[in-house]
């Protein structure tokens, strides 16, 4: 019960408070992959804590251990002596609440995943016919006969880039930057990350981590892919490609949010100042620790409170 309560409280902290500290990680000039990792890790930990809570209630790990640590042995003794009559009710409530949330997540995510796979396969079928590709399977670049300066990618086992021939009017470095941007999406499994965060947002819109996580992750995957392309082809190449492709898109698609988003991406693309701002070896572990630390502290605090109150009973 102690483990289950700690996990449940940690999930609450992550779900409702994590956006406050995660949003501070995204800073222009700093590598966005750190912030992206932190958001994804926080969402994964949130789901893991939610799954772990009911699992701990059901399996009661304390019963299978001979030498229990102090808090667990204290709670067990108090329960056996009938000092905690409300404990079974609390266990049931926790199991029902966390269990129903987990079931909802599972149903929505699996439904969304199936729809995503079906739509992607159908889209790829059409693209192959339009691009005159006779071979099965995906991968590589499929060029479409169109004058637009546009490219996009489809994820999956054989991620594919679809590019319009209008892209060939770009300077070779800028064209390479566009393709590298899309390859970065495929290599980074960005389509899966975006799909899962979108499904989580649909499943639990009342949880800020899920609701705010979806747009944050969509933004950060674009910034991360921009950064990757800039690393390979140079900032100027990505900047030129962004400006040329943006201005060749339909005026109807260029609303105020679009212009703002483009300006922000150009701003974010500015080279990192100083060696400490680029992606280092410690960035990913730091990002995961940063996202998990408050939840771990909360879980530990719950254990400490239970111990203290049990010892005073």
């Amino acid at each position: 019960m102690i483990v289950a309560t700690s996990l449940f409280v940690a999930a609450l902290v992550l779900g409702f408070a994590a956006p406050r500290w995660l949003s501070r990680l995204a800073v222009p000039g700093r590598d966005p992959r750190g912030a992206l990792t932190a958001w994804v890790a926080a969402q994964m930990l949130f789901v893991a804590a939610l799954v772990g809570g009911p699992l701990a209630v059901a399996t009661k790990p304390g019963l299978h251990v001979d030498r229990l640590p102090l808090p667990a042995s204290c709670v067990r003794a108090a329960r056996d002596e009938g000092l905690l009559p409300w404990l079974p009710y609390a266990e049931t409530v926790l199991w029902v609440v966390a269990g129903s949330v987990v079931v909802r997540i599972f149903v929505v995510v699996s439904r969304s995943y199936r729809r995503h796979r079906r739509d992607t396969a159908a889209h790829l079928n059409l693209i192959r016919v339009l691009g005159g590709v006779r071979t099965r399977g995906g991968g590589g670049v499929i060029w479409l006969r169109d004058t637009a300066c546009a490219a996009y990618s489809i994820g999956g086992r054989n991620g594919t880039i679809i590019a319009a021939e209008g892209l060939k009017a770009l300077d070779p470095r800028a064209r390479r930057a566009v393709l590298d941007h899309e390859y970065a999406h495929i290599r980074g499994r960005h389509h899966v990350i975006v799909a899962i965060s979108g499904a989580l947002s649909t499943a639990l819109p009342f949880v800020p981590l899920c609701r705010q996580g979806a747009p944050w992750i969509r933004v950060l995957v674009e910034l991360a892919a921009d950064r990757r392309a800039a690393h390979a082809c140079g900032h100027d190449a990505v900047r030129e490609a962004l400006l040329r492709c943006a201005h060749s898109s339909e005026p109807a698609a260029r609303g105020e949010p679009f212009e703002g988003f483009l300006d922000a991406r150009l701003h974010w693309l500015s080279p990192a100042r100083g060696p400490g701002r680029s992606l280092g070896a410690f960035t990913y572990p730091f990002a995961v620790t940063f996202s998990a630390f408050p939840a771990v502290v909360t879980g530990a605090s719950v254990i400490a409170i239970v111990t203290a109150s049990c010892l005073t009973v």
Partner: protein
Amino acid sequence: MGLGDLESAIMDVLWQSDEPLRVRDVLARLEPERSLAYTTVMTVLDNLHTKDMVTRDRIGRGYSYRATRSREETAAELLRQVLRTSGDAEQVMLHFASSATEDESRILRRAARRTTARKRREFRS
């Protein structure tokens, strides 16, 4: 916009042909390893007609089919569609110069403002 396996194979046949084709013509031009029933091809062509991918004219008791738009026109339409819907939370196709929802645009503006304010404070102190 998307097509099933057989739908895309049939569209490929129609796009390769300069003239309208009847069901049996389509069946004959499909890859030989596909052993398909006449009615299967007819049903798929009917589905494509519902999707406005093909138009049909009555010839005797049957129909002759042709693609509504050329391959190039369909490619252009598809690209426009993807461009319009990129930034849409339901779409998981990541477009290079993607548009953004108001939420996404606001997130970046806020983060940039916070950074500028912090720099200003550091400069003053």
